[in-house]
């Protein structure tokens, strides 16, 4: 069974630029999560999708971050415009059921904003 795929693995941009990350969950997994992990901290949930609907986005900075999951499969997370404090690893995870269940994580995208 293929795992969660993410791209790109690394990205360096200047502040005020835009960036997008892509995630392909494990086949058949209905729930998809995006996390932000700042160096030295645990992952922080940004947004959770159930199929193509949003379950929780209470910690997503909506003035600059957006996410979508068209057709209930792949998802993209966008930052526009980026700030220095957005430098972090962005992790995508998926699980097979409606709630937490067992989450499986992708390798992450390391974003550096200069």
């Amino acid at each position, binding site marked *: 069974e293929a795992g969660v795929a993410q791209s790109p693995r690394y990205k360096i941009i200047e502040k005020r630029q835009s960036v997008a990350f892509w995630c392909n969950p494990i086949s058949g997994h209905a729930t998809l999560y995006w996390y932000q992990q700042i160096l030295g901290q645990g992952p*922080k949930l940004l947004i959770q999708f159930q199929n193509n609907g949003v379950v929780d986005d209470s910690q997503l900075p909506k003035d600059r971050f957006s996410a979508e999951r068209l057709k209930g499969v792949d998802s993209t997370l966008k930052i526009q415009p980026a700030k220095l404090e957005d430098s972090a690893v962005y992790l995508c995870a998926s699980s097979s059921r409606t709630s937490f269940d067992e989450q499986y994580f992708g390798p992450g995208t390391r974003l550096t904003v200069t």
Partner: protein
Amino acid sequence: GIQVEQSPPDLILQEGANSTLRCNFSDSVNNLQWFHQNPWGQLINLFYIPSGTKQNGRLSATTVATERYSLLYISSSQTTDSGVYFCAVERTSYDKVIFGPGTSLSVIP
């Protein structure tokens, strides 16, 4: 919201030693999971354990939901066990997942 604490924050072990990592949470939870984040950043499932005890090789975990804590035991540690160990909880199916701050483990030969 629910608070998650992990202890100790850092741990250095000699290869072959045993250790216990602890996760405390401030409210009842429906779900709890332990993860290992390896030095390359990959988060790997260890246990899905909202209650009870599970074992997988040299690792085992126990969650006492009524007392709001979970323990992760590592026996006969190996250098490949190095990394950060996180517990993550979900209070109900309608609440967000909350990760603890992690325990950073270094196993030295």
